[in-house]
């Protein structure tokens, strides 16, 4: 039996992720060294690429937006102990919902109506797509991991069929819808700034970032301040006890999955309503999966998810810079770093836990942990 003292909460939330991140970066540094480049230079290039170059911060935050949505999606399901792998599918179906509303109302309705309805549609379509696996899990016992993965494939096929068939822009060959009317475009950050006569470098950052921040707040209130959140966490920690307490476990599971799908679906507001302005194939490009890593690293807490999203956003943006600067390093290096982070903060999450706990214990002589 291992006998490490318990890790204080602040260290669990703050110090441990940082250690895990450093370990991941260290291993990546070794790889870069093996490629014959200087890891420190690479790190500086990445940081500059993510935060310093004109417009880079906008790009970073634009990526961050996607990660916040998919991270929240994974996290809310995880609070009910459901592992939602279906973020990709839910996000693309969410995009379909937003696109349909934009195409249908865009020409005839002012932005004040079409935009909220489109955002809502993105959430609803995503929720509906996650509702089905949720229902199957709660009522039929089909494993959520299997069904959500399957639903990714189904969503992908449905999108191909729709975009190459019924929804394709007339007279076009590429599988995508017609471009939305401007009233269905979410305001871009640069445009808003321009209106206030402030000139900033162009970036895809748009109003959906604000929606993402609101989603973080809603998530926090919902999970920790409401009866639903209380029941959700009870089901996640101990479904048997939840049943004893009169909580309808299947209902909570279904609702948790639907909410999860809604968060994932909202990702489409950034990509479809904010940037592409039309529904295209594969606009989710892996964000749904990376959401798992974000939630894992962010400890399923909104603050953590925001920070993890920012990190992953910076990696995406800064990684592109690596590709430009170095001959021997390609954009895939970012995937390696991501993989390392997932490895250290997910699979090896408890590797640094006991030593850190002992260190803190020795440092504070047990004062901090005495009453825990």
């Amino acid at each position, binding site marked *: *039996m291992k*006998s*490490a*003292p*318990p890790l204080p909460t602040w260290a669990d939330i703050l110090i441990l992720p940082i250690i895990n991140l450093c370990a991941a970066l260290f291993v990546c540094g070794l790889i870069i060294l093996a490629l014959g480049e200087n890891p420190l230079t690479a790190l500086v290039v990445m940081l500059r690429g993510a935060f310093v170059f004109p417009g880079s911060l906008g790009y970073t935050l634009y990526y961050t937006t996607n990660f916040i949505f998919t991270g929240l999606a994974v996290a809310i399901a995880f609070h009910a102990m459901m592992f939602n792998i279906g973020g990709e599918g839910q996000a693309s179906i969410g995009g379909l919902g937003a696109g349909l509303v934009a195409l249908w109302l865009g020409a005839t309705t002012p932005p004040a109506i079409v935009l909220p309805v489109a955002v809502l549609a993105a959430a609803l379509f995503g929720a509906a797509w996650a509702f089905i696996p949720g229902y199957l899990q709660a009522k039929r016992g089909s494993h959520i991991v299997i069904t959500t993965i399957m639903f990714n494939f189904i969503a992908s096929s449905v999108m191909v069929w729709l975009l190459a068939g019924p929804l394709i822009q007339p007279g076009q060959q590429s599988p995508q819808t017609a471009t939305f009317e401007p009233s269905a475009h979410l305001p871009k950050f640069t445009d808003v700034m321009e209106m206030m006569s402030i000139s900033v470098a162009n970036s895809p950052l748009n109003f959906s970032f604000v929606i993402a921040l609101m989603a973080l707040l809603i998530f926090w*209130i919902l999970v920790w*301040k*409401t*009866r639903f959140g*209380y*029941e959700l*966490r*009870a089901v996640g*920690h*101990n479904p*048997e*006890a*939840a*049943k*004893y*307490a*009169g909580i309808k476990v299947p209902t909570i599971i279904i609702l948790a999955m639907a909410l999860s799908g809604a968060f994932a679906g909202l990702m489409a507001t950034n990509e479809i309503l904010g940037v592409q302005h039309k529904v295209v194939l594969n606009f989710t490009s892996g964000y749904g999966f990376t959401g798992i890593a974000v939630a894992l690293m962010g400890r399923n807490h909104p603050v953590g998810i925001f920070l993890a999203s920012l990190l992953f956003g910076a990696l995406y943006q800064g990684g592109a810079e690596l590709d430009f600067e170095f001959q021997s390093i390609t954009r895939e290096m970012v995937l390696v770093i991501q993989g390392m982070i997932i490895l250290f903060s997910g699979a090896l999450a408890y590797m640094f836990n006991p030593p850190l706990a002992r260190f803190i*214990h020795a440092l504070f002589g*047990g004062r901090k*942990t*005495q*009453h*825990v």
Partner: protein
Amino acid sequence: MESINTEVDLEHEPPPAIELRDVSKTFGNVQANKNISMKIEKGSIHGIVGENGAGKSTLMNILYGLHTADTGDILVNGQKTNIRSSADSIALGIGMVHQHFMLIPNFSVLENVMVGNEGGFLLGGGEEEAIRTLKHLGTEYGMDVDPHALIEDLPVGIRQRVEIIKAIKSGAEILILDEPTGVLTPQEAEGLFTILRVLRDRGVSVLLITHKLAEIMAITDAVSVIRDGEIVGHRKTSDTTTEELAELMVGREVSLEVERGASEAGETRLSVSNLGHSSLSGIKKLSGITFDLHAGEILGVAGVAGNGQTELLEILSGMRVPDEGKFSVLGTEVTPNKHSNPKLMRKLGIGHIPEDRHLHGLVLDFEAQENFVFGFHDADQFYSGSLLNQRFITDHSSDLMGKFDVRPTNPKTKAKNFSGGNQQKIVIAREINEVPKLLIIGQPTRGVDIGAIEFIHKQIVHLRDQGCAILLVSVELEEILGLSDRIMVMNAGEQMGILDRDEADERTLGLMMAGITGSNAA
């Protein structure tokens, strides 16, 4: 006995089978064992008593090599040892029977006994050897078992016998038993004691860990009491009393008798008729249960664990749907077609203290205050608008923690960081505070220390005196006899009879628990 003779006179006295000298062990901040010194004489039965968390199990795990002591020496037969793993202690002749059996249910007795001594790639040799051992032990110690019976088909008492055989088959001279009677009927326990006495007379030293003082008095030769990780006394069993041991364990005077007046049974609150339930695979778990329960009365349900009590509790509390029969509770009828659920039952005024507080009663990762509203979290009083009213919940919890003496008193402490007794008090405080009309209780004092047991028993009797109807399921006969006004005995999912408290004694109940009705069932 208090002083430890470190010098052993080799010429006249054989060295003790086991001697511990200043053994200490620390886990994180917790000192589980503090300078433990004790001697276990050869060919004796030595009891170790202490409350839950006192450090008994840690000490035994150190002896059996599952933990390593931080400091101190362990001497076996006068020789200093360095026990680092269970293989070491087995080699030294120490065998252990765990509280939870380590048997493979779908293996036969023979196969289970062979584990670890398979005798090579082909099993033939090992099998012969094992059969010989089984025969030998059968004649020598009176431990007869059918070698070809599957473990899962055997009653618990026999399974335990197989465990003992496993422990001593290769000639263990020291046998450690951890809470061996927790799952036995009184008769099975008596059978176990007979075997232990035979083993003792053949020179085996037995170390018996238990929290049941009656057993200590019945079978041991000597006893050591452990409290807060320290030995607080060694006694010769013949020189001590249950009261003295209880006082040593708790550190203050405790009353083991529950003070209670006569019951004043009022109107019928629960009427059960012909209730039955089958598992998913069609095995009958419960059948033909029929009884009435009145206000101001405690009906005890006695029985060995796993004889349908769990199903009964879960059906009555709405967690399970009955397959047959019906029951009517506070005017609401529940039948196989007319379901109920825990929420509805709670609304009717039924409290439920579940058998397993970790599985059902608490969310261990929740703070104490979140657990204090668990099940009642629908009540408007805990909300301001549609958001949880944290401040009110915290005050409410502090209040209950004070009233029910739950420690530590911080409502933000997570449930998993409380001791068993305090966890149970959280559950009991929550359920009793709502002043239920009917309270369904399962194992109220399982894994709870004596001090808390006294408190919990008082609360239960107090509630009865206030007119609550109480159904009390417990595997502890003493508890049933101490608290109940009437006693129902269950065996194999059926009720063996209902006795008035005055007609019941341990022997009668024991026979009924074993499924023997005869003339005793009233």
